[in-house]
Structure formats: C-alpha cells, structure tokens
C-alpha cells in the first residue's frame, strides 16, 4: 500500500485567532515495506503529518494517496469524485484506509475507552468483523506480545500505569494486523527492556512486510531500525535520507539540531584518533564493540 503526499498543507483552526499553519507543501512518497522514521524538533509537525495517513485529519489543501484512495478535504474530494467513473468511485471509501492503516497516538490514553483491558483490545477486531471468540483470541495474542500480564486483563485501562497503558494501546492496534503501522513515539514511557522488546516486535512486523512509520526522538532507534529518515522543521520536510548518511554528515547534523547516537559519536572520535573502523557497520553498542575488536586485531 504505497503512500503519496502531494502539495499537502495543513492549518489548525483556520480563520480564527488561533490559526496555526502546521504543514507546508508536503510532498512525500513512502514505499511498501519501508521502515520510516520521522524526526524533528518539538512542534515541527510530525504528529500532524502522520494523522493524515489514516484520515484523522484531512488536508487544508492538497492530498494524501493511500493505495489509490485519496484523503482530501470535503470540497476537494467532491470535485475529485466527480472526475471518476462509477466503478472507480467505489474504491474511494475512507473506511478501507482505516482497516489497513493502524495508528497509535502519542498519548495512549486518547485511544483507550472500554471498561477493561481485554475489551479494549478486542474492540478493533470485533469492529472489523471478527467473531467475539476470534476477537478475544487476537486480543490475548497481542497483549502477550506487548508484555501485558493476564492479571491486568480485567482492569480498567485507566487503572494502569503510564507504560502499561502505552502497551495496551499498541496491542489494540496490532491486533488488527494493519498493512501500515503508524507509531507516534511508541517507546516514550516504556522501561528500557519494554522499549527494546517493542522495537523488536515492530521489526518482526516490518520483516513480515508491514510498512512502519514511526515518530521518534530516539536516534538509537533510527540508526538501528530505520530504512529511511525524514526530518521535519517548522512544518517543512527539510531532509529525506538513509539513516547512516544523516549521521555521517556533521554539517547537516548541526544544522538540523539532531543529536547523534552515542555509539556513532564515539566511533567518530575513535576514527578521528586514528582507529580504522567502518562507521557504516556501527548500529549500536554491540556492533561498536565488534568494530573495535576487528580494528585492534588488524592493528596487532
């Protein structure tokens, strides 16, 4: 399910004193099976951008094309539908997008609403036509994947800790097996082990063909998992690149105000001081250690 943003603009509270232009002329292609990380300073427009992909927000102007279905504002969409044949129009149902695109919010509390954890996570599958029994089964599988213990199944989502809530919100979305999984800072609030496990889970989904689009401030995640990085600044896309080329270019890093992952900056210091290691191979502390060992063997 390819995604294409064309000349998309988004303005919050248009024509009011609180008017805020959040995105300007966004043009972007996301190809199937990629693992895209969206980065950028506070308020740069990341959450606004991703909410267009499943039509939670509709563009002030321009469009997003999700597998041929156009997300547009009402007026534009009307005009667009007029230009189509009756047959083509049938394929323009936004509901199709909702079924295939799962989005986990930045604040998980805003997507939890059922009385119990288990009901909450099985709501989605039920809603998309699974029987009660199947939905419960799917919910239990997902809850297990995100590390939620059975003892919490009958609790209200509002009686959970922050990290537990985030896990339940993620379970609620992955129980739908979406083709495109959008995650807005999914590791914020998770303990270190939870964060690693969650990233490994997303990585497995990615390897099985799910497109992953993730907003994150954690550059360790970007370097380790992303196939592509998109950098936003004040509502503009200012860079699209591969993770390593982002961190290889010191000037760009400085200009973008992006902090490099610790293993990368350490590796760069080693190189500066004469050690021969290949920065391309450094993805985390373990791979950094491997590179150091290799370099020292060569040396000796």
């Amino acid at each position: 399910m390819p995604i294409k943003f064309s000349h998309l603009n988004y303005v919050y509270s248009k024509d009011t004193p609180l008017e805020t232009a959040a995105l300007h002329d966004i043009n972007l292609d996301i190809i199937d099976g990629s693992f895209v990380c969206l980065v950028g300073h506070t308020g740069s427009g990341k959450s606004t951008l991703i909410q267009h992909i499943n039509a939670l927000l509709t563009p002030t102007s321009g469009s997003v094309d999700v597998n041929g279905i156009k997300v547009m504002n009402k007026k534009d969409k009307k005009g667009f539908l007029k230009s189509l044949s009756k047959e083509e129009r049938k394929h323009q149902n936004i509901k199709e997008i909702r079924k295939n695109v799962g989005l986990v919010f930045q604040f998980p509390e805003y997507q939890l609403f059922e009385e119990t954890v288990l009901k909450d996570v099985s709501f989605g599958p039920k809603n998309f036509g699974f029987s009660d029994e199947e939905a419960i089964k799917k919910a239990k599988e997902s809850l297990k994947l995100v590390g939620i213990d059975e003892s919490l199944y009958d609790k209200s989502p509002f009686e959970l800790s922050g990290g537990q809530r985030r896990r339940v919100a993620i379970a609620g979305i992955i129980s739908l097996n979406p083709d495109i999984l959008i995650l807005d800072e999914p590791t914020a609030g998770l303990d270190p082990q939870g964060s690693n496990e969650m990233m490994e889970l997303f990585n497995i989904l990615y390897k099985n063909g799910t497109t992953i689009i993730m907003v994150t401030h954690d550059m360790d995640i970007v370097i380790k998992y992303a196939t592509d990085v998109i950098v936003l600044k004040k509502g503009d896309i200012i860079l699209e690149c591969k993770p390593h080329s982002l961190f290889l270019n010191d000037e760009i890093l400085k200009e973008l105000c992006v902090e490099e992952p610790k293993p990368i900056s350490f590796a760069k210091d080693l190189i500066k001081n004469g050690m021969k290691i290949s920065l391309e191979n450094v993805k985390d502390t373990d791979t950094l250690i491997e590179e150091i060992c290799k370099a020292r063997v060569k040396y000796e």
Partner: protein
Amino acid sequence: MEKAIEITSLEFEYEKDSKVFSDLSLSIQKGEYVTLLGHNGSGKSTLARLIIGLLEAKSGKIEVFGKELNEENIYAIRSNVGIIFQNPDNQFIGSTVADDIAFGLENHQVPHDEMDSIIKKYASLVGMEDFLDKEPTSLSGGQKQRVAIAGVLAMHPSLIIMDESTSMLDPRGKKEIRDVVKKLRNENKDLTILSITHDVEEAFDSDRIIVISNGKIMFNDVPNKIFEHEKELLNIKLDIPFVYKLRNGLKTKGIDIDSLDEKEMVRLLCQ
C-alpha cells in the same frame, strides 16, 4: 540536615490484596536531586501521588519538610510542592498558556504587575514564549510538556516532582530542561528534585538514584555505584548508560579500559 521527604513503613494498595507497597521507607534530603528508576508498573507514579496526598496510605508515615502528611497539613504541604504529571493534559487549568502559568502564581499571592514578567520569564526558559496566547490542550506533545514544566517552576516550589516530564522531548530538549533545573538549584540550594524517568543517561546527572522493582527498593546509591550492577538492573528490566555498556562489553572481549570518561576511553583505545 533537614529532610525534604521522609517515608516510613509505607503500605499502599489500590485494590484489596494487591499491594503496590508493603513496607517502603526512604528519605530525601533538602536540596538533593534524586532519580527514581523502576520498570513499568513498579509504583513510581503511585509514590509521587502519595507524597502530595492525592492518594492515601493504608499505613505508615509520610513527612514532607518535617510536616506529617495528614488532613490538617495537606494544603500547607502542597503549596510547597510542585508536581509535573506523566500526562501534561492532567495538569492544565488555564485556557491559554499564559493563564496556565499565571494560575499557580495567583495562588501564591504574586502582585499583579509582576505577573507578566514572571510568565514571560518562565515561558522563555522552556522555549514557549511565542505560544502565550495558545490553548495548552491544542499544542504538540512536547510543547505541552514544556508548558507543564514552566507552570510548576514559576510557582517556586521547594520540592519538584517530575514524573517523566520530558519523555517527549529530544535529547537536546531534555538537556535544556535539565540545565534550567540546574540553574534554579544553583540559585536556591534548598530546591529538592525528585525525578522519575526511564532515561538512564538523564538519571546519571542526579545526586542519588533509588531503584524500585515491584514496590520494593532494590538499590539506593550514587549513580556511579548503581550502574556497576549491570546484571541486576537488566534483570529488573532496566539498563545502564552507554559508557558502562561499552566498558563492560569490551571487557568480555578481553579489552580492559579502566575509565568511564568518553575522551579518556577513546585515548586508551587508540594508544
């Protein structure tokens, strides 16, 4: 030394027979910066809510600046304590960012003509000076966290509890907030900080770290000592900072680097 927080034999449960704390004791000195680390669901936010009296202990004693937490003292205690909640939306009262920061000030009898300059000062400290007229609830995640922090700092509390208050900021934004707090602590040596975070690099900056797991204190020591317990920390779902991981990892490969200073480590490795 005077104590900011003194907790003795605390017992607490939300529901019958599932105790979050069965016998917790800890104390924090006035002027200390203490980080609370612990896995999801270990009881950190619960402890924060107990300290400001939003939850009531089943038994045990909580003292804040020498006053016992009870019905009589609760408002006096709260007027001295600022808490930044895990979800900033639980915090906003004002309809604009400026009102929200002002709200705390009004409660503290700040003269009206000083208010504007104080609001501006604290909004700029967190980089939100251009958003004073916006609604707090219609900001981005990171902007909300910044405003929540400004609102609490502006009240000049003697104790600030920060419950993952920078979880949605980038490393630089987190550092900026830490620097602001550092500056305030330099100006007021008695300012006490209790910080809850999952970021071990951030925890490294504190005077002391208390590690809890399932409602029990596992470690209570200076950061340097805490992070020497790699295995035990990993076992309770936590992590250690990069320099420790690197040093320990190299050691298992037979490379002994006796330093935790990045520059020195580079020098030793490149010899």
